[in-house]
């Protein structure tokens, strides 16, 4: 497996690979840019944003959707908190659109969706709790997340499905922090639907600040 390293003109403050099913807690300073690279394509990256100085001021998926009058996220989308503070803006996106309706997988929701055999499979909300703990982020602070690179079509008839991704190897999305942030990431381990192309793969995080 060969991974082409993305080398930019300025030195990265962060350059790390998150393995399939693993996670990360990244502190991004105001003005900092965080790029998430879908190294192998069709990989859902479940992501939460918190004001680093007040974790109650956290990303709100449905306030973000309402404020932009559209369901899908892409370049220009302002990611807002429940207080309607701007936490970050998507400033670059080679994938085209991202989901924020579908939430994160959990062991409990896997059982409901797919059956008892999934009870002990690894899931995003396990990763959120594990990596969030360092920032005091517990169950009550787990909000509804962004699913970068995930394709969840919502239709005019009120339907919703999980579909094969629109992403491809090397596609990336970049956010610029509007204030100091905790960015909590789960590189989704889900194998029961097409959100990861049935085969979870690593992602790269590149930070510049």
């Amino acid at each position, binding site marked *: 497996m060969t991974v082409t390293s993305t080398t930019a003109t300025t030195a990265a403050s962060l350059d790390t690979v998150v393995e399939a099913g693993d996670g990360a807690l990244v502190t991004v300073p105001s003005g900092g840019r965080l790029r998430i690279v879908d190294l192998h394509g069709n990989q859902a990256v479940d992501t939460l944003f918190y004001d680093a100085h007040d974790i109650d001021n956290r990303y709100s*998926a*449905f306030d973000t959707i309402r404020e932009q*009058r559209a369901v899908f996220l892409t370049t220009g989308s302002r990611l807002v908190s*429940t207080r309607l503070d701007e936490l970050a803006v998507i400033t670059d996106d080679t994938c085209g659109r991202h989901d924020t*309706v*579908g939430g994160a997988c959990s062991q409990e929701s896997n*059982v409901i969706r797919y059956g008892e055999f999934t009870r002990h499979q690894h899931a995003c909300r396990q990763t959120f709790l594990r990596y969030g703990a360092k920032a005091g982020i517990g169950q009550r602070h787990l909000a509804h997340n962004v699913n970068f690179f995930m394709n969840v079509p919502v239709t005019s008839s009120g*339907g919703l499905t999980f579909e094969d991704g629109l992403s491809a190897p090397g596609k990336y999305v970049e956010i610029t922090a509007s204030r100091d942030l905790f960015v909590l990431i789960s590189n989704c381990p889900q194998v029961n639907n097409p959100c990861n192309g049935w085969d979870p793969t690593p992602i790269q995080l590149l930070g510049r600040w």
Partner: protein
Amino acid sequence: MTPAATPNPTLTPAHTHEVPGAVAWSAPVRAGRTVTLTALADGANATMLMIGADRLDRLNIPDTLKSQMSARIKPGMVLMSDRGLALATVTASSLDWHDCLTGALPDQLLLLELTKHGFGEADLHACINFFSKVSVADDPRASLTYVPDHAHAGDTVTLRADQDLLIFLSTAPHALSDEPAAGVAVQIETPAHTDDPELREEATRALRLTRELIA
């Protein structure tokens, strides 16, 4: 002490309350009881949050939607919690579309209701905007448009509590609406019978687990 005989000892008296427009209200609802909301005027909106019996497990809209392949709340859906249990079942409604994609503006009165019960800002999970509809376009971004003439006076929705609940309700106008705030009537009662409506397999699984574990 022998309690006085009542005509039907299994039925508790119904609780009724008219929630005026532009206020917030909250109440406990015992498992098995139903909550019926009735729009008191055209353009009513009832924003609802719900917290389960253990006071941590909240209504989770993404899980509710993806497990039932829907982008709206309608009759025949189970409202699911963060931890995969059934909070309530939408047993009936005169409307087949209740918005759950567009949240609510910061609402000091709703936050105070949460605070009364020991909750706070961290519990501002996604809400349902009963009686409101925001249509989705089949365009590349799934653009949203508020539908102004959706609910009318007398429209109703009935929820059956599938575990002991706390419900939090705001009658502030929908965030995308220009209409004045309208009130809703609330009726909480123990129904004579509680058959499940027709449900998807996922919803049935959530109900079964809930009944086995806590209901």
